[in-house]
């Protein structure tokens, strides 16, 4: 089953990039939690190492089978994810005002993270099953839209608006990639515009506050506007070379909220300066371009779409998070994939990367 050729085609560079990002993540987490190590903060970077360990194992596992297997189990897997989402809504514990977690023994699972990957698989399967290359019309799209819609609504209900929106954006990236008829685009845009006010009304109070605070920071000096102000100070004060490892004052004095999750990038920017933050960005850029290359060389449509979906996942997480911490977007609680602390996120992203690795390894193999 395990062809020797696969080993020849193993994508070492991809693995190396991922390991490097993982290393940077752990190093920065150590710093981010340095000041609170006495009250349990020290566990965090250790846990992240574990998550990476598990994630890489799963990544390797993902390469052992032919990815076309996923084509067959895409829908069942999706169903499983939806069921887990339901479980969260009824059995999940409320933290920070929302129900996102399922606690199983000594670790917890965030099903919404799994949904991100599952949706990609389902979309890739759908669009590779048909022969069309372009100009999908509305009626062709209703099925995938409904499929995306179900977990979207459930996640919005948790409430986790950020994750729901990311799923939406990633899905649309894939859909747009396979191209949509101009007329349907217009129809869709007009539906989006009409539903915007309803969407606004359905937002929770604090979510509305965040968006308003973004547009007019003076209205919410104590809330999310404060977080972004602190983040910008942290980032900006890094200057070119940074303040030095473990010497970030914003970080150490706990001025940054959520500095081990959403705002971890700000910690890196403060301590390593522009050189550091640009370096991390470049690393991600390289990762994305490398994956796009894999997509290019993929031997079939399904593989290409899966890779495009995963690229969209990484890309949008990065863009939204960096824009958020630099003040270009309102605070929506999106972590930086593979960098921010978070077991479910790390594991599911590495699993997704496993898929990419899988496609890469089999680019020369033809189906029997």
């Amino acid at each position, binding site marked *: 089953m395990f062809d020797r050729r696969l080993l020849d085609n193993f994508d070492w560079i991809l693995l190396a990039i991922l390991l490097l990002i993982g290393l940077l993540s752990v190093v920065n987490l150590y710093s981010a939690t340095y000041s609170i190590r*006495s*009250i349990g903060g020290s566990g965090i970077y250790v846990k992240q190492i574990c998550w990476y360990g598990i994630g890489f194992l799963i990544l390797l596992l993902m390469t052992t089978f032919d990815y*076309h297997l996923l*084509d067959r189990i895409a829908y069942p897997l999706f169903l499983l994810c939806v069921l887990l989402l339901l479980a969260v809504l009824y059995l999940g514990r409320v933290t920070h005002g929302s129900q996102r977690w399922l606690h199983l023994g000594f670790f917890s699972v965030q099903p919404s993270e799994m949904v991100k990957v599952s949706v990609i698989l389902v979309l890739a399967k759908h669009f*590779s099953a048909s*022969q069309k*290359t*372009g100009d999908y019309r509305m009626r062709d799209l209703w099925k995938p839209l409904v499929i995306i819609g179900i977990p979207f609504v459930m996640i919005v209900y948790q409430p986790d608006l950020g994750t729901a929106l990311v799923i939406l954006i990633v899905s649309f990236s894939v859909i747009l*990639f396979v*191209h949509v008829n101009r007329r349907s685009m217009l129809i869709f845009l007009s539906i989006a515009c009409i539903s915007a006010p309803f969407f606004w009304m359905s937002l929770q109070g604090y979510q509305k506050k965040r968006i308003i605070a973004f547009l007019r*920071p*003076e209205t919410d*000096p*104590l809330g999310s*506007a*404060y977080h972004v*102000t*602190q983040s*910008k*100070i*942290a*980032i*900006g*004060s*890094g*200057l*070119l070379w940074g303040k030095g490892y473990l010497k970030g*004052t*914003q970080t150490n*004095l*706990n*001025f940054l909220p959520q500095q081990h999750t959403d705002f971890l990038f700000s910690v890196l*920017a403060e301590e390593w*300066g*522009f050189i550091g*933050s*640009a370096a991390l*960005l470049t690393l991600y*850029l390289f990762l*994305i*371009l490398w994956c*796009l290359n894999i*997509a*290019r060389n993929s*031997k*079939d*449509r*399904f*593989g*290409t779409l899966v890779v*495009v979906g995963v*690229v969209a996942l990484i*890309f949008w997480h990065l*863009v939204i998070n*960096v*824009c958020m911490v*630099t003040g*270009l977007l309102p605070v929506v609680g999106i972590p930086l994939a593979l960098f921010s602390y978070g077991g479910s996120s790390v594991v599911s992203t590495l699993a997704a990367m496993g898929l990419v690795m899988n496609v890469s390894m089999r680019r020369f193999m*033809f*189906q029997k």
Partner: protein
Amino acid sequence: MIGRSGFDPAETDIFQRRLTRLTFFVFFVFGVLFVRLWFLQVIHGSKFRTQSESNRIYLRDVLPFRGLIYDRNGELLVDNRPFFTLGAVPEDIGDLDGLLAGLRELVDIDDGSAKKRISRAKKRNPFHSVSIKRGLTRDELAKVETNMFSIPGVVIEVKPRRHYLYGPFASHLIGYLGEIDTKQLNSEEYAQNRLGDFVGKFGIERKWQKQLNGVRGGQQVEVDAYGRRLRVLYQRKAEPGLDVYLTIDKGLQALVEKALKDKAGAIVAMDPMNGEILAMASSPTFDPNDFAEGMDRKGWEKLVSNLRFPLQNRATTGQYPPGSIFKIVVALAGLEEGIIDPQEEIICTGRHYFQGRMYRDWKEGGHGSVDLHRALVESCDVYFYRMGHRLGIDTIASYAKLLGFGLRTGLKLGDEKPGLIPDRKWKLKHWRIPWQEGETLSVSVGQSFALVTPIQMARFISALFNGGILFRPQVTKSVGKGDGSAVFRCKPDVMGRWSIGEEHMELIKKALVGVVSEPRGTGRRGGTDIVQVAGKTGTAQVIALPEEEETIDEEQIPYKFRDHSWFVAVAPPESPMLALVIVIEHGGTGGSTAAPLAKMILEGYFSSRAS
């Protein structure tokens, strides 16, 4: 080899093109991010560096000024006073021992505990000030403030503290504050509040909590390394709470509180023409100031376990047998039903025999020949035993409810008990045995199962003198800012009307005037020259004395077995301005204890009005 996965060269071409476009898009977006970072870190980097190094931004919570509480004439009853706390910020302290020594020279402090707490806080939360001494006096404050620069790390925090000007004064009505609990935090009414806030827990403070609270403000303050405020970056002003004007009259309330001093019981004074409460007091009482800074556990335990229940508002939740005052109900019922002829005279010998039992009249030897008027004036029990028996308990009960007993009055101020008016159905349901006719006799004179609250009594007697209107009792006159704009203004609220013939009410009213003015009236000690008074005494039995015993001297009965003393009064009867209800627990007879208190109150109130 075109399998299900589709391997079509033409298609791959299209995909290749799109991938290229995608690549450019990715480059473009990354470019934007790089530019943004450059902007923040290189171009404006030094500005941010300065901000992060020598300055800090603190979030300052600005607590809103809690609304004040006044009486109906604008006399201030409750306000806020500044409360000073001496503290230190662990991060800013250089030499802890030196700091504590320096402070000890200025004020009296417990340095042992302060040192421990500061050292602990330094590890966990070094930027939050630790309190060293709370409640500084003005002198201490002045001493510390003038020396503050030589003791870095020391801060003075000012917080508003609720101040009840007259201590225990209308305490059950006004209420008190306490720290917000989790249930309240989750409800919409407390959306403005956070953990640690003091909110109304009882009384008016709780009823109008949302309006009194005001709206929080906030500031982002730039502070330098010494803690000096450099500038305010963003600010949202706090909105002060609205003020509450109560319906009570401060002067009258003072008289009422004086009357209840060292006694247990309740007094309610109401304006009979609109239901506004002019005074309300319950005793024993408490000082709401004790709650203002958060009561410690010991203090709370003491209040709660006090067997005389000082926290209970007896005016609304004290349920007592109405005693002879209930005779008014029987009289009105009898007149309306045509069963009582006002001219009819019966002989009262002091004893009444019924079904083999003897029912005593309070007056040994009886009242002689009495008609309705005399029976009320001298409070003859035998007359009412007979009339009550003629009516039957169910009729009596239905009239009692019509007249306003047995149900809550609708005063919306926390707990209120409905009292109890028994009838046959009730007895079967609760006691599972049928009603005994003899019990009707007891109820007719306001003993046995019947229970009323002082506020029900006030509403009832007001209705008798205002033409039969049952008003909802009100305690809030208006709520609003001082400028006259109001979010609430009270209006008389009619809850029901008596369908009793006017001539019947007149008869009773005349009799009640006689209770106070006639030489043998049981309420003559409640009369005064200053204003005409109509009233009725009542003596509610706590236990029934055995038949054989002579009239026992009251002093010899243990306190807890002594009767409760009632007196209700309306003055002046023709155009009523005040309805007064007094119940003194274990006070003995109505005429001896409650009536003289009423006289004191009425004289005080009406003479001040005359001047």
